[in-house]
Each structure stands twice: as structure tokens, then as C-alpha cells.
């Protein structure tokens, strides 16, 4: 049974989603990247280097940790945390950056660019750029720069140039527009490290493959611990890379349930949210067809989320397809639910999660209590929350005084 893992097709399509809707200037490069990536996938030397850096530099494998206190707290399913926050730079983002920078090197590119929302992808990109001695430019929305100050400083320390983007609402989508403009202008020497499973083909598949290490490890770790596969997997969704990385190696296991958690902002009904599948319609943006937040005239609507990393009006095309296939369930968690779950995780487990990750934990809070202890639930702890101290302090300000 291979029905869910043979995609995309040669045109980069997952059903009708995906594709390469980009300007002609970028097409030759995108085709070249596709060929280079296809070769790297089967190149033992590339895979050896990737494994080396994932191990000694990133610190993989990340533990699959039984969250005993969280399990007790919710009083239901056994909760396991896949500890991606323990990776170098504090999130899953570096799994992908390490892969892409190796490819950039192989292609002889001289300069790295990236977009960032929460700054985790920006930090991970700046990190690998430093490690491989490449100059690096990070585009970040002005609003996000405001709410993720510590990461801005980290990127600068790592030698990256952080360019504030003021167009639109100054969030992730605008940063991505600006990165694409840079890429078109500097197409000869520049490699664009996209941070999630979105963008034109081959990015959604390539980023997924680099992140799939999460799911592969989870699989063997759970087999080792419990002698069987998990019953459910839960992950938050911005563009969907940490979720796809966890889910993909299990897609053909029909007994493994999967839940992607979108950012519900102030509630999907309020219109102030970032839940593209729960509150959007199909459209074409940033090189692929997927579900988008847009008005009836096809103008993109700004997303809203307490978490900068989920504040994006689209979602990776493979998720759009899995949604339509009904293979993965997509739900949403509001800002308030995420904040609540954030605090529970801090107090019960002594782990400060990223606000993005807190959305996945919010779904666990709803689901776990209704399930028996035998139910093995894996949550992707996609990142740590140090970067969110200012935002959380702001939102919880009164309670702390």
C-alpha cells in the first residue's frame, strides 16, 4: 500500500496541489535544483554527510520522552514528546537547513537567503551559513522582529544580515515575498533555503524528506520502547514542516491517526486566525497551489496568530492533499488555548515549549483526557520557547506581577 507516499508526481503535484507557479526567471534554477536534489537523494556521499551533520552537529537522534507528569495531569492517553527542541538552535528547523546548505554547497552557490517568522528558521539558516562560511541574508517581517527580539539578535551574532520587511502586515508571508524578490534578482549565485514544506516544487518534497528524520526516529524509538507503533501523532502547523516530518513515515500505517493543529488565533469564526485548511479555500501563492486565507477576489488575507511561526495564510500543498484525502485530521487551537497549554507544559514537565508547539499541546489537552492509558500519543515538541519570553510575559503580564 503506497497510496500516500508516492507523491508528488514529476510536475510536483499532490493531486491538484503543489506545482511550480513561479516567474520564468526562476524556472531554470528550480529545474536544476530538482535534478540536483534527485541526485543527492541517491548519492551515498551526500547521505553520509547529511547523517554526519545531523548527528554530531545537530545532536540527533532527539529523544522520544515519556511525559509522565503530563500524562498524569490529563489523566488519559500516554503522552510522548519527540524532543526536537533539544536540537542545536532549539527547533526542528535545522534538520532541513543542514540538508539544504549541503545542497547549496554542492551546487556551488555563494550566498544564502531565507524568510523567517518566529526567527527559528532564520536562526537555523544563519547557523548553517556560518558553519559553511556563506554570507546570509534573512528576511523578517517588521512585526515579527518586534515580537521575536532574542532571535533577531541571535541571527546577527551568527553573522547574518536581517532585513526588516514592512510591506503588508510585516509578517511571514511578506518576508517570503521579499525573499522571492531577492532570489529573482540574484538567481545566479543565491540559494534560497525555504523553511517549510511550501514553495515551488521541489521544495515541499525536499523539505519533507529532510524533516522525515523525525518520523523515522519516532518509529524505531516507539518500537523499541513499546514494541508497537504509536496510536496517534500530533503536531502544530505553520507551513507544516514539523508535522510532515513526523507524519510522513507513518502515512501508510492505517492504524496511526494523525492530527495537524492550525493556529486558530482569536477563533476561526472571528476571521482573525491562521487556519488555512479550516478557514481557507484553494488558491495559488508562493509557487504552489494550496489552501489559502483569501477573499473572494483572490486577494490574500493576513493571518493572525499569537505565534509568529504559525502566522502564515497558507499551508504546504501535501497537507492540502492529505486533508482532502481525509488521511490527516486538521483542527485548530486558539491563542488562549495555546497559552494555557504552554503554561501546563512548563509546570508539569519543566519544558518551556515554543508558542507554535503549544498549539499542538492544546490539542493534546482536549484529546488525551478522553483516551485510555494504552493509547500512545506522540506530540512533536517542535521547538523551545526561549524566544517567546517577551510575548508570553506581555500576554500574561498581569498574572506575574
Amino acid at each position, binding site marked *: 500500500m503506497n497510496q500516500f507516499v508516492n507523491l508528488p508526481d514529476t510536475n510536483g503535484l499532490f493531486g491538484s496541489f503543489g506545482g511550480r507557479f513561479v*516567474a520564468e*526567471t526562476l*524556472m*531554470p534554477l528550480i529545474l536544476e535544483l530538482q535534478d540536483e536534489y534527485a541526485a543527492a537523494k541517491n548519492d551515498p556521499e551526500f547521505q553520509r554527510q547529511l547523517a554526519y551533520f545531523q548527528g554530531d552537529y545537530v545532536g540527533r537522534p532527539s529523544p522520544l520522552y515519556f511525559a509522565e507528569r503530563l500524562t498524569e495531569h490529563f489523566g488519559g492517553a500516554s503522552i510522548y514528546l519527540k524532543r526536537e527542541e533539544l536540537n542545536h538552535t532549539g527547533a526542528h528547523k535545522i534538520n532541513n537547513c543542514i540538508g539544504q546548505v549541503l545542497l547549496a554547497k554542492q551546487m556551488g552557490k555563494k550566498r544564502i537567503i531565507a524568510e523567517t517568522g518566529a526567527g527559528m528558521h532564520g536562526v537555523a539558516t544563519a547557523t548553517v551559513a556560518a558553519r559553511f562560511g556563506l554570507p546570509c541574508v534573512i528576511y523578517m517581517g517588521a512585526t515579527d522582529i518586534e515580537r521575536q527580539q532574542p532571535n533577531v539578535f541571535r541571527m546577527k551574532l551568527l553573522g547574518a544580515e536581517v532585513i526588516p520587511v514592512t510591506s503588508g502586515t510585516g509578517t511571514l508571508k511578506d518576508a517570503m515575498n521579499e525573499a522571492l524578490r531577492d532570489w529573482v534578482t540574484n538567481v545566479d549565485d543565491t540559494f534560497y533555503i525555504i523553511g517549510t514544506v511550501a514553495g515551488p516544487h521541489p521544495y515541499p518534497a525536499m523539505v519533507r524528506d529532510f524533516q522525515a528524520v523525525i518520523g523515522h526516529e519516532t518509529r524505531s524509538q516507539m518500537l523499541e520502547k513499546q514494541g508497537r507503533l504509536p496510536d496517534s501523532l500530533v503536531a502544530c502547523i505553520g507551513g507544516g514542516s514539523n508535522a510532515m516530518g513526523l507524519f510522513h513515515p507513518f502515512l501508510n500505517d492505517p492504524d496511526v491517526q494523525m492530527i495537524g493543529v492550525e493556529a486558530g488565533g482569536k477563533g476561526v469564526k472571528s476571521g482573525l486566525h491562521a487556519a488555512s485548511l479550516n478557514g481557507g479555500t484553494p488558491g495559488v501563492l508562493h509557487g504552489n497551489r494550496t489552501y489559502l486565507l483569501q477573499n473572494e477576489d483572490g486577494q490574500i488575507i493576513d493571518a493572525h496568530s499569537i505565534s509568529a511561526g504559525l502566522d502564515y495564510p497558507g499551508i504546504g500543498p501535501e497537507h492540502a492533499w492529505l486533508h482532502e484525502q481525509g488521511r490527516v485530521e486538521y483542527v485548530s487551537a486558539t491563542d488562549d488555548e495555546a497559552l494555557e497549554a504552554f503554561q501546563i507544559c512548563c509546570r508539569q514537565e519543566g519544558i518551556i515549549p515554543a508558542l507554535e508547539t503549544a498549539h499542538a499541546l492544546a490539542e493534546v489537552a482536549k484529546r488525551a483526557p478522553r483516551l485510555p492509558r494504552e493509547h500512545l500519543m506522540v506530540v512533536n515538541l517542535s521547538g523551545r520557547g526561549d524566544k517567546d519570553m517577551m510575548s508570553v510575559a506581555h500576554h500574561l503580564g498581569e498574572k506575574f506581577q
Partner: protein
Amino acid sequence: MNTPTRLKDCFAALKQQNRPALVSYLTAGDPDAETSRRLLHGLPEAGVDIIELGMPFSDPMADGPAIQKAALRALEGGQTQVKTLDMVRRFREQNSTTPIVLMGYYNPIYCYGVERFLTEAASAGVDGLIVVDLPPEHDEELCQPAAQHGIDFIRLATPTTDAKRLPKVLSNTSGFIYYVSVAGVTGGSAPTPERLEASVAQLREYTELPIAVGFGIRTAEQAATIGRFSDAVVVGSALVDCIEHASTPDEAVERVHGLVSELAESVRACRTASEPQVC
């Protein structure tokens, strides 16, 4: 009814006159609906041969700041796809010869519904489409359906389009081919004429279609230089800047049409000066 030969007739007539076409770009609805209508209606008289009318999009990834701002002004003023098509319809009531090419991004067309859009565009009198984010790999989306409605699909060739890829870019392209003079977004730096002339000459080996050159052309002087070896010169950001810098609608109209007149005069004279003629 649509006359699918307007672009062809236009280029044929200009060939007779031995001069390149002046192509203007403005965003529909910029800075507001009424001023945009006045701007559009006055373009032929000011000397424009082919009109590119931008369909504003919230996320114009291939455009620089000038056209990004123009799209925002238009959207803030309530511009929609319906209104843009209506502008063309009203223009056609007064002008049946000047070709109009709608330019933009795929999403607003996709959301409108491709069949509905093409049917209405054809009946409004649209002659061609330039959709920046639809490479030939996605021809079945819009390019092929457009042909069935008698609407030309004009493709961009760029400095990164190599000889291997060029045939693919040229297949299914009709009306003219738009050579993007520099790798980059609209409103960027100007290309060097020597390199450009060589690129256009190379392109001619592959196609009989008229070749328009755009991106980075701002002045009458540049238009004249490039018009000597190309079939059309496209000016966009420089015109859009006139709108941004005007303090009243009247001033915007005056400035835009003023610059168009200068450019028109220059392309009309560019091959009769001492330079040898091409084409």
C-alpha cells in the same frame, strides 16, 4: 466582440512605419477608479500603442516597490477583477484598435474561475494576457484555454532562459514575446544596451514573434536606444511613480500622459536618427 487580431494589426502597422511600439503599464484602479479610467482613456492619444493593464494582487512577488504600492492603492480603493474587466469594456466603447493586455498573477484569475474570466475578458475586448507566475509547465491552467477564447498568451523570456529552454517558453506563446531585460523585479536597474541587443538578436533566431523589451526602462533616451533593435519598449514603474508622486488626481493624469508623450516622441524618432535600422 473580441478581435483577436488587434495585436497582429498593431505590429504590422508599426513595421510599415519602421518604429517600435510604445507599451505602457498601469495598474487598474490606481490611484482610484475614476482617475485610473481617465489615465487609461488618455493613453492612446498621448502616444501609447499597446496598453498593459495590471490586475492588482495583494502579493506581487515579481514586482518592485513602485508596482507593489500601486497594487495596494488600487486594492484599498476597492478594485476587483469585475471592475478591471469593466474598465476594459468601457474603454472598448471608445477605442476599437489599441490592444489591451491584462497583466498580473494567477490567483485572482483562478479564484474568479478560469472559464468565467476568459469569457468575460474576451467579450470585454481583452487581447492578451501576461501572467507572471504561470510557466509553460502549467500551460493547461490558462494558456491553452485562453487560446480557445482568442486571447493571446504572452510569455516572458528572461536572461536565465537558455537555448535549451527557449523552445518550451516560445511554444504556445502568441501576440508577442516579452523579453525581461534583467533578472529581477520590476522597477529595478536598467540593463546595458549592448548585452540587451545581443540577447534580442539571439531571441530572433528562435521566433518570428515581435519582441518587446521591458523592466528597468524609465527615460525617453533609454526607450530610444532599446527601440532601435526591439519591436516594442515597455515602461511601467516610471509611469506608476508619476502617480505616487502626484498630489492630486489631475496632477497624476497630467504627469503620466506627459511622460508618455515624451516616450512616444522618442520611439517615433529612434530609428530615423543616424542609427542603422533593424527589423
